[in-house]
């Protein structure tokens, strides 16, 4: 024994023991501070906001870590914390540590609260995460959306509708009638030409003279009879002509029925151009909720992306390439396949909300691992809390190794205040109220199918709309009368590039009230147009009627005068023919 002791090289062993001692003392005194700084830095790079930790305590003999008063700032709201907790304690199992595996059987996270206020700004200078292309596309769409929709409505507004009186078909018809009348008048006036009668009368007069000169009485009587017949015929033709002209004069009418019809067509046509502003309900919904929904979605999607970074690819698909080694590896059965990180059970308690709406909850998260394919147990998240007003519940069952998950989240009577929806010239300010949320998201083989229903109720709402006075008033009046509305968000498609659609009855409410209001206005305008057309047509009609009557009278007088003259001459002829 003493021989072996003499053989030992103490000059080699002692410095190494000393080094081990120094390393141990270093870890004992300084490791906690270093770990605290490292944790802060790594969390800041993940959340892109200030992270504070008051104390970190580690133990190596019984490996454990305790983190006290951690708060993570919200990068989108510098005076709010995304979350904070009072204490997080977990013990690592010693044996797996020698295999570079971190296994936590039980851990406790207490005082976890979300969206809490903070005194100092949480902004830090850090490179922003690149947004996924599909999110950038949505945001670009949203930027131009509000203006675009209201420009369309504005261009269709009733105030803008004008019509050209000269182009009205009723006016055109009136003009045509006037032209026709003038032509008819001209024709009739021309037809009142009795020169042919005068010629005939002259001839008859000559023949009468001949009859009178005839000395043969029998012949004279015979000739007188023939002349009399000619006079009677002339008389009859004149009568016919007179009747014909009088018929033509009497046939001149005003075509009022046709004009009335044309007038109606005109009004319909003008009202046809005066369309009601087409309000796309989906567009209104998207405009109001789009940004908020996408921002929220982006917020949670970034968590999902971050989580994905820490989950390795399915090892089933990986080929374990071993370098060309000397010898063969004999594998023995592994009693337990442990992933490199495993948290079997995490108990959480904390609160959600503020003041009288605070809900204290208890939650548990089971089987958190970075190698779900190796540790094939579903990640289970359960949360429940309630107060006298409502409750919150979350159940999630995520089987990453089977590529499927199911999450149901419910929040009854969630109080909110100061929520602003929409942007720029269309802002709805939900001053305060409550919401009932139900969210169900299922994923399977990289396909997501999710539906989020939110019912806002007992709300106090204001709006700030600057489109045009009319639309502003309609929307303001409509929105101020709303006491509750629904919002549904559908998430479908591929997990890496999901499509989001939003539905809400607030779009229907606004659309309906606008349509109702515009209908009233359209009726008013219809009357105005009708009146305007009537006035114009009446004025035209009066002038036209007077003119027609006057001309008719002129024609009648003319014909009477002419026929009177001729009839007198005929009477004279008849007197002359008497033998």
């Amino acid at each position: 024994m003493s021989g072996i002791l003499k053989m030992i090289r103490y000059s080699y062993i002692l410095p190494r023991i000393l080094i081990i001692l120094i390393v141990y003392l270093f870890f004992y005194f300084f490791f906690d501070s270093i770990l605290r700084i490292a944790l802060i830095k790594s969390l800041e790079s993940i959340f892109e906001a200030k992270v504070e930790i008051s104390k970190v305590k580690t133990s190596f003999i019984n490996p454990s870590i305790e983190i006290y008063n951690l708060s993570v700032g919200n990068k989108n709201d510098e005076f709010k914390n995304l979350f904070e907790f009072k204490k997080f304690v977990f013990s690592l199992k010693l044996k797996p540590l020698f295999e570079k595996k971190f296994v936590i059987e039980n851990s406790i996270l207490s005082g976890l609260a979300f969206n809490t206020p903070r005194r100092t700004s949480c902004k830090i200078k850090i490179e922003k995460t690149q947004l996924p292309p599909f999110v950038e596309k949505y945001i670009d769409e949203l930027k131009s959306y509000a203006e675009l929709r209201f420009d369309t409505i504005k261009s269709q507004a009733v105030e803008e509708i004008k019509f050209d009186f000269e182009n009205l078909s009723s006016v055109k018809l009136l003009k045509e009638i006037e032209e026709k009348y003038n032509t008819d008048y001209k024709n009739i006036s021309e037809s009142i030409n009795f020169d042919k009668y005068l010629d005939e009368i002259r001839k008859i007069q000559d023949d009468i003279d001949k009859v009178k000169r005839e000395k043969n009485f029998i012949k004279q009587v015979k000739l007188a009879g023939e002349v009399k017949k000619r006079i009677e015929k002339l008389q009859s033709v004149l009568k016919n002509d007179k009747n014909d002209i009088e018929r033509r004069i009497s046939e001149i009418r005003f075509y009022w029925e046709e004009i009335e019809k044309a007038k109606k067509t005109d009004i319909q046509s003008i009202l046809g151009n005066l369309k009601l502003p087409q309000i796309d309900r989906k567009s209104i919904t998207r405009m109001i909720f789009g940004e908020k929904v996408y921002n929220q979605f982006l917020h949670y999607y970034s968590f999902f992306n971050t989580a994905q970074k820490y989950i390795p690819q399915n090892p089933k698909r990986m080929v374990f390439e071993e370098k060309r080694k000397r010898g063969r590896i004999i594998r023995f059965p592994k009693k337990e396949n442990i992933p490199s990180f495993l948290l079997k059970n995490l108990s959480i308690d904390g609160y959600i909300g503020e003041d009288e709406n605070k809900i204290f909850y208890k939650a548990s998260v089971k089987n958190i691992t970075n190698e779900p394919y190796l540790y094939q147990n579903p990640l289970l998240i359960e949360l429940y809390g309630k107060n006298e007003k409502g409750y919150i519940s979350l159940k999630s069952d995520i089987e990453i190794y089977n590529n499927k998950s199911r999450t149901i989240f419910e929040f009854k009577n969630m109080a909110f205040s100061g929520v602003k929806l929409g942007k720029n010239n269309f802002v709805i300010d939900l001053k305060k109220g409550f919401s009932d949320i139900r969210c169900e998201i299922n994923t399977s083989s990289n396909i997501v199918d999710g539906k989020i229903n939110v019912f806002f109720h007992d709300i106090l709402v204001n709006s700030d709309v600057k489109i045009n006075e009319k639309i502003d008033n309609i929307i303001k009046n409509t929105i101020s009368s709303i006491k509750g509305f629904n919002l549904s968000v559908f998430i479908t498609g591929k997990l890496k590039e999901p499509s989001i659609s939003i539905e809400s009855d607030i779009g229907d409410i606004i659309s309906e009230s606008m349509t109702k209001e515009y209908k009233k206005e359209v009726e008013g305008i219809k009357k105005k147009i009708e009146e305007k057309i009537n006035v114009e047509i009446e004025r035209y009609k009066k002038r036209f009627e007077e003119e027609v009557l006057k001309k008719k009278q002129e024609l009648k007088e003319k014909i009477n005068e002419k026929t009177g003259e001729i009839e007198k001459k005929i009477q004279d002829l008849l007197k002359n023919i008497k033998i």
Partner: protein
Amino acid sequence: MNPLTFLRYFIKGLVRDNEPKQIAFALSFGIFIGLIPKNNILVHILFIFFLCFKINIPFFILSIVFFSFFSPLIDPVSDRIGYFILTLKSLNGFFTELYNMPVIPWTGFNNTVVMGGIILSIILFLPFYFLSLKLVSYYNVKFKNRVVNSRIVKALKMSFLFEWYFKND
């Protein structure tokens, strides 16, 4: 071990710890490390463990280099021995336990050449020790004086740097 420390031990070993037994042990210990693959923790443990003994370091290093150079020739034998041992049904339970223990799998005991190399080294240890002892005795009688009195060794021993480097040792 950094290269400077290694050189220091090597030079020191030229003038110290050169008793026949120390050299024989150094040569015999070298077999253990020389015959097995170097990509496991066992090599490092054995190296540190052997250095804890007052053995002649230059000969220990030379032995490692020598056996490492010839190990590929011996690997087929080591592989067979290792395979035989590792697949023995009677030892299966024992090896399974080891395999499920922390740290132990890092030794690469389940590698046939590692296991075979260790077994072979254990078998060869004593014969090689005695053989080395005889060889060293022969060296002491025939060559030691020549080497110690050689100009190179003398120059090294008298140099200022040499004195300074070892003055606190």
